[in-house]
């Protein structure tokens, strides 16, 4: 579903992402881990077509994201670490806007808004303006908007920002369900416990290079402690 082929991004003489290649298949929850400044956000921004790679390519369901960005983005949902929301719109209006952009039918829109707002416990807040939402509510809204159109690939940068324990649990359940239905999930997080709980595969990046790529069961068969140990070993 997601294919990164020799992806490289240079800023002047500095190489932020260095010859990164990986595949994320449908139904996989891929945890992209690494210390600050390792190149995670740059990689994600290239996947979301916000940055163009210096060399290499990003393919989403076989479509080159930088050759046919509009087509590639039809299959993609991107949740940035600092999402943009129209403050003056209500939650429902924002979801309707996103549904229109993804050209959902009236039925699909109704169903999508109903299900996602129920899943993320947004229903009582839907008619309120986004400016009145708390940080956690905003995060739930943006996650609901991302899941509403059943994307083939979801890319999430730090999904747990501002979520309370219940919201976090809802997120995990929703993401697992989406993966079971064939969605590929690419997420970055600094919370190794989250990665251990939800990810089926994990990649570790350091100084722009992928230093590990394998199944979660391989790297931390005995629990999150082992993942943490391995992570520190590979990134220090």
């Amino acid at each position, binding site marked *: 579903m997601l294919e990164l082929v020799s992806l490289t991004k240079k*800023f*002047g003489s*500095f190489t*932020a992402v260095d010859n990164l290649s990986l595949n994320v298949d449908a139904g996989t929850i891929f945890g992209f881990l690494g210390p600050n*400044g390792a190149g995670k956000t*740059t990689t994600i*921004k290239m996947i*979301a*077509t*916000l*940055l*163009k790679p210096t060399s290499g390519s990003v393919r989403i369901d076989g479509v080159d994201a930088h050759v046919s*960005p*509009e*087509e590639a*983005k*039809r299959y*993609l949902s*991107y949740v*940035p670490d600092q*999402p*943009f929301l*129209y403050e*003056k*719109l209500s939650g429902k209006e924002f979801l309707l*806007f*996103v549904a*229109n*952009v*993804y050209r959902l039918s009236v039925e699909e829109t109704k169903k999508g808004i109903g299900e996602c707002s129920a899943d993320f416990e947004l229903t009582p807040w839907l008619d309120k303006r986004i400016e009145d939402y708390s940080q956690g509510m905003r995060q739930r809204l943006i996650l609901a908007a991302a899941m509403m159109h059943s994307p083939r690939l979801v890319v999430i940068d730090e999904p747990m920002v501002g979520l309370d324990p219940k919201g976090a649990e809802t997120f995990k359940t929703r993401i697992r369900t989406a993966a079971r239905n064939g969605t590929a999930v690419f997420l970055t997080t600094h919370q190794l416990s989250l990665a251990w709980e939800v990810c089926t595969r994990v990649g570790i990046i350091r100084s722009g290079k992928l230093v590990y790529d394998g199944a979660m069961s391989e790297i931390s068969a005995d629990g999150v402690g082992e993942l943490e140990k391995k992570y520190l070993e590979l990134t220090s």
Partner: protein
Amino acid sequence: MFLQLMKTKVRLLYLEGGERVSRHLYRSLFSLATFIVFWFLTFTVVRFATQYLLTQAKIGLFLYHRLLALALFVFFTIISVANILVAFATVFRNSEAEFLNTLPIKSVEIFAVKFFDSFLYSSSLMMILVLAAISGYASYFGNWLSAGIGLLVAVLPLILAAASIGGIVLLILLKTSRKLSIRTAVGAVLTLYAGSTYLYVKLNNPFTLFTAVMKYYPHIDRYLGVLDPKLDYLAPSFWSANYFYFSTTGNMIGAVASALIVCTAGIGLFLIMLKLASLFYQETFWTARHKLFERRVGSRHSGRRRSARETFRPMTLLKRDLLLFIREPSQIFHFSVLILLIGIFLFNLSAMRIYLADPFIMSSAFALIFAFNGFLVLSLAIRFVYPMLSLEGETIWLLRSSPINLGKVACTRLMPAIVLLSSIGLTLGYAAPSPFGHFHGLIPSSVIYGLACGIIFPSIVMAFGGAFVNYKEVNPVRASSSHGATVALLVSLGVLVILSSIVFSGTYRYFLSRGIIPVDLSGIWIWGVVAVFCVLIARAFSLLALKIDL
């Protein structure tokens, strides 16, 4: 999809506008009053100037409309340049543009929506100015209907053409910046604008044209197109002015033809811009993002980042502001351009000589130079002082939660601006009397006027920056073109008009006595009182802004 996006944007504009009125009633009423006063001032000035030129100076309808063409050309250039600056911030470096670019929307549609956003942002003041000027024009000639139609078919397309040229230049600039360095590309654009403005003004020198037109006296109301330089035909502003000439003289065929040319230019340039956007926007968006990230990554890896604790003392705040200023290319670039313009103006001023005997015209000329000096100081203040408080942005909590006197913080915002701008005002004030040759007695008063401008304008602008503070606006260009900045500009222009008339009356007697009676400085204390009052108001509003509920 474009219509869907526009529908959302219009709804947002409506919601934001409505809320602005309901939440900040006094602020909105004040803004409305300012707009009305500004509208009335412009209306009166245009009507008076038209009356003076046609009945006192008797320059004739043809020359009058050529002066109008010159004014429209300046207006056209200002809109075009303003649109380049604001469009860069709105279309390329804006969180909404980033959001829209992650959605499956055609890049040209994103460009078009954000272009209108930037167009409304950068041209709203100009539209008020035009509306007021056209009303003044129509009230003199009594041709409300044709002037009203002119607004739609000769002025709006002109504004669209100017903004579209700005958009085209911006796209080409970013497109070429991959191959050329950004400095070279910007230098080329600046040279292009400066060159075309110089060429236009040189070809249409009002004094030369005046002499040429007067050869046809008394038939100076006739269309003397033979005197027009052929290059003028390329400027849409020329056809816009022609529309007004023909409609006023009752030549409807000429008016329709001129309007058609302006409309074709406006729509044509807009379509060319959209075509270029469909070809280049995605790529130029990536280029702009790349350059933004390059800077961020560059500063991260050169160890330039400072710890948050560094910002806790007023002197450290100054240091921080200076570092942030010089590391933001748009800030340092715009500042350099404005300083360069002031340098050019000073150079021209020292080379200029005014040999007129009429004391009325002499004092008018001096008051005009003063007004222009004041406008330069005011432009700097609007662009750089107005956004200062808003730019505290999302780190305002840092100041609010730290053991620091917010009054001192307000002063560290205001004082450096006053010191810098009053130095510039002083220099301009010193240079202002040079075109008047031997009238050295003008220098002390002129220096004092310049100094006062350097204190009064940054203070007024800072006060409005505090009253309309928006900590969510992180872009200095957008902040300085916001609604609050427009109101600050209008109020300051009103003050500038009052100050200019005081300067006029102060120097009139001096010129009347041929420099024997010194300039009347007895009212100088009023300037001092006004300056001190403005500083106190600025401090109070800055403090209010810093203490606002977050």
